[in-house]
């Protein structure tokens, strides 16, 4: 059939077109104070995105201080020695900019999107708050309330999010990924300005940051601008704590969350590796990415085709695997049973799918389909300057080379059916599995208001 030859033609011509849109258009330099600056040219529109990535996130937080990176992210908008609280945002707004920030497990990042001539405004403001933040008790007390509202909105009142939080705390026993990025409510309540000040001093320095700029700019000019604004900042002596490694899981783990909800919900996760540096031993991460695509890469993938449509045992399923991170991650599957089916049936159907991956190799047609999707998605991703900058910043901050973006498609294309089978056999096994179930309690029943949790280990 025609579809079997298409992806090859596809690759060739995308590679040609890609020469104009990628290739040497990304350039980098490192300032004397250690700030890495990476600039991508995209001249399609007169805009620029500037992102500054700090290598500090939930992964760095000790017990008792969970959520501190995220609270500090909020406080970064609350004034410096030069600026009043909120003035940062007002200046960006008056310049037509969009701005925000995000905290992840592995990083904290700040961004502005602007018409291209306004890039110096972003640099001046970011350089200022990298070293001159003014933390104030009164502003902190208010903002802490805002963060607690955020936690209520995103977690406390969302039964599936509560289940996810419990799931992570079950899958990891030692490693900081066990704690939520937004922090436990008790830790937020105990947070102090002093602790935030220490956290800021410790991590916010040019030698712990990467500046990523993508847009209608010339790298040389951006480097000069970066030197002007960020160059004078003093580096810090960084003492990153040694992160506790998660001991290898030896037996099935599980937990249960009871909360007011309408539907049961299942989360399953297996400990798996992430990309480690572009060497040949990275093939497992690429094979896991392909595996995720085989199960959940669109409406033709196995879960949609077999579980939602064929057996009709699932109302909805998702598979997620992120191949980049500062520590090993989880290959996750979650889902809601279809009407008339329970969590057990859903889980058995998912398990049968995983067994099948271990027993028989995926077909050539499936492998080609996943690769065709990766090739196309790579081009689609270039339609957004923001997502181009995101890819660069994420890779660099987890300690990988941003040039892996260029080799990503090639490496995915080298994955074989045998490799997909091999990672399925190695990682998707019961002794490596954590499962969490949301047990819905009637929403109208008043006494069930408080979530209840339970769990077991090493069953």
């Amino acid at each position, binding site marked *: 059939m*025609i*579809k079997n030859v298409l992806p090859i033609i596809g690759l060739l011509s995308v590679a040609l077109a890609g020469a104009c849109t990628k290739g040497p258009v990304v350039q980098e330099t490192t300032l004397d104070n250690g700030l890495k600056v990476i600039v991508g040219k995209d001249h399609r529109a007169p805009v620029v995105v500037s992102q500054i990535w700090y290598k500090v996130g939930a992964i760095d937080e000790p017990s008792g201080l969970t959520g501190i990176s995220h609270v500090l992210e909020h406080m970064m908008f609350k004034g410096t020695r030069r600026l009043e609280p909120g003035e940062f945002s007002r200046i960006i*707004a008056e310049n037509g900019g969009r701005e925000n920030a995000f905290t992840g497990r592995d990083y904290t990042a700040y961004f502005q999107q602007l018409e291209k001539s306004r890039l110096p405004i972003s640099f001046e403001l970011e350089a200022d708050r990298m070293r001159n933040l003014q933390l104030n008790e009164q502003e902190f007390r208010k903002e802490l309330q805002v963060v607690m*509202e955020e936690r209520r*909105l995103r977690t406390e009142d969302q039964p599936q999010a509560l289940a996810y939080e419990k799931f992570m705390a079950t899958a990891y026993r030692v490693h900081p990924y066990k704690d939520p990025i937004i922090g436990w409510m008790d830790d937020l309540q105990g947070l102090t300005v002093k602790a935030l000040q220490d956290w800021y001093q410790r991590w916010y320095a040019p030698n712990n940051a990467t500046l990523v700029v993508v847009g209608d700019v010339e790298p040389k000019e951006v480097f000069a601008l970066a030197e002007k604004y960020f160059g004078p900042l003093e580096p810090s002596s960084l003492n990153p704590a040694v992160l506790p490694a998660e001991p290898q899981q030896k037996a099935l783990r599980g937990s249960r969350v009871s909360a007011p909800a309408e539907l049961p919900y299942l989360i399953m996760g297996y400990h798996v590796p992430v990309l480690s540096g572009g060497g040949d031993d990275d093939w497992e991460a690429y094979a896991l990415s392909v595996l995720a695509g085989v199960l959940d890469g669109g*409406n033709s993938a196995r879960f949609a085709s077999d579980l939602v449509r064929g057996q*009709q045992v699932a109302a909805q399923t998702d598979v997620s695997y992120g191949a980049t991170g500062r520590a090993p991650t989880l290959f996750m599957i979650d889902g809601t049973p279809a009407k008339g089916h329970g969590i057990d049936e859903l889980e058995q159907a998912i398990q049968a799918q995983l067994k099948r991956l271990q027993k028989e190799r995926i077909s050539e047609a499936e492998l080609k389909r996943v690769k065709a999707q990766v090739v196309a998605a790579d081009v689609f991703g270039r339609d957004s*300057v923001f997502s181009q900058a995101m890819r660069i910043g994420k890779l660099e901050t987890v300690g990988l080379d941003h040039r892996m973006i260029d080799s990503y498609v090639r490496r995915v294309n080298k994955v074989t059916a045998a490799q997909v089978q091999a990672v399925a056999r190695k990682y998707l096994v019961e002794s490596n599995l954590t499962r969490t179930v949301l047990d819905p309690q009637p929403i109208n029943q008043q006494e069930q208001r408080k979530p209840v949790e339970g769990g077991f280990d090493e069953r």
Partner: protein
Amino acid sequence: MSVKRLVLLCLLWASAGALASPDIQHWTLDNGVRVYFVESHELPMLQISVVFDAGSARDPAGRNGLARMTAAMLKEGAGNRDADGIARSFEDRGVQFSVSSKRDMTLLNLRSLSQAELLKPAVGVLRDILLAPTFPASSLERERQRALVALRQEAESPAAVAEKTFFRVLYGSHPYAHHPAGDEQGLKALTREDLVRHHREYYVGANAVLAMVGDLSPRRAKRLARRLAGRLPRGRPAAALPEVLRPDSAVEQRMEFPSTQTHLRLGQPGMHRKDPDYFPLYIGNHILGGGGLVSRLSEEIREKRGLSYSVYSYFAPMRVEGPFTMGLQTRNAERDKALTLVRTTLQEFIDNGPTEEELLAVQKNLTGGFPLRIDSNQNIVGYLAVIGFYDLPLSYLEDFIPAVQAVTAAQIRDAFRRRIDPDKLVTVVVGGER
């Protein structure tokens, strides 16, 4: 290809991208389909949206959810393909396809690499989906059950409950009152014949807009448009929607929910897409609650008092008056304080309007940020769909900056006074005990 020639090609591509506003080409097919196209060769991709006036505002009585179900069922079978066949035809080629259906619009979106060998078969499948969906009865049963499950999941969310209640109270018997996802009764009543009828009536040339952005020559674009949509029957444009009635008095609806936060929604019918007050209301709202962290509502509720993570207001401009909504969520104990603050902030804004400084700041924000609105194919195709669907002038994007600059503080105050009556707000409160 030599490196030199490649460089030359790159230069040519780069220079084509330096347009201030995209050059929109517009034509109409023989069957009435209105086509909007922007040529853009920098990336080897094409973005297509087909839009019909076939949203949930067209659901017949007792069939709430029909429009969205019809849209969802398009991918279940078309021509001689079943759901797997359709999905594979797209995904084998890396093509992304999605369908969405809201109150006004039903949209079919397709994104493909622009090489003919990938694009052509995808367009063929999309044409079958438009012209000859099969709506298999067995798929309908499954999708009905899934939609019912999705409804139940939304019932877990105090935000979703507040949103649905707000529309229901605000719009009463108007077709905007119900959510596009429908309701249990409507979903259970749907038959295959309902879907066939909805498709026959609304998925027609005179009721369609085709928006395309990407790596096609105008000649290829013309051919593609004809091939994709040229065989849709002409049909008729959807009938005018009923007028939106304004409330005679304030209405407040409170609902118990086992949540730690209370979700508030306050508002009134707002404006339609071609509203003469569009710019004064849009800019005024930006000052009141539309400018992210920099707005009066955000200042009063979040920045000064730490009462909410997300507080906002917006006008949703629709075919007829879409809602003006102010919203937030706060811990249950602070609900009344927050409610009072929203009301007094609105009242103060209506009484005195914006200051000159506020107006200037917003004008700078909107004009200075204009290039960000059209910096990707994805954004541009969205604008083309809106321009086509609401029959806005082709110069809509070019006119944006002058229109923003022309608005005065007096016009904003005047428009808000005429259009928003703080004594007749619909208020919805969904949350737990204090």
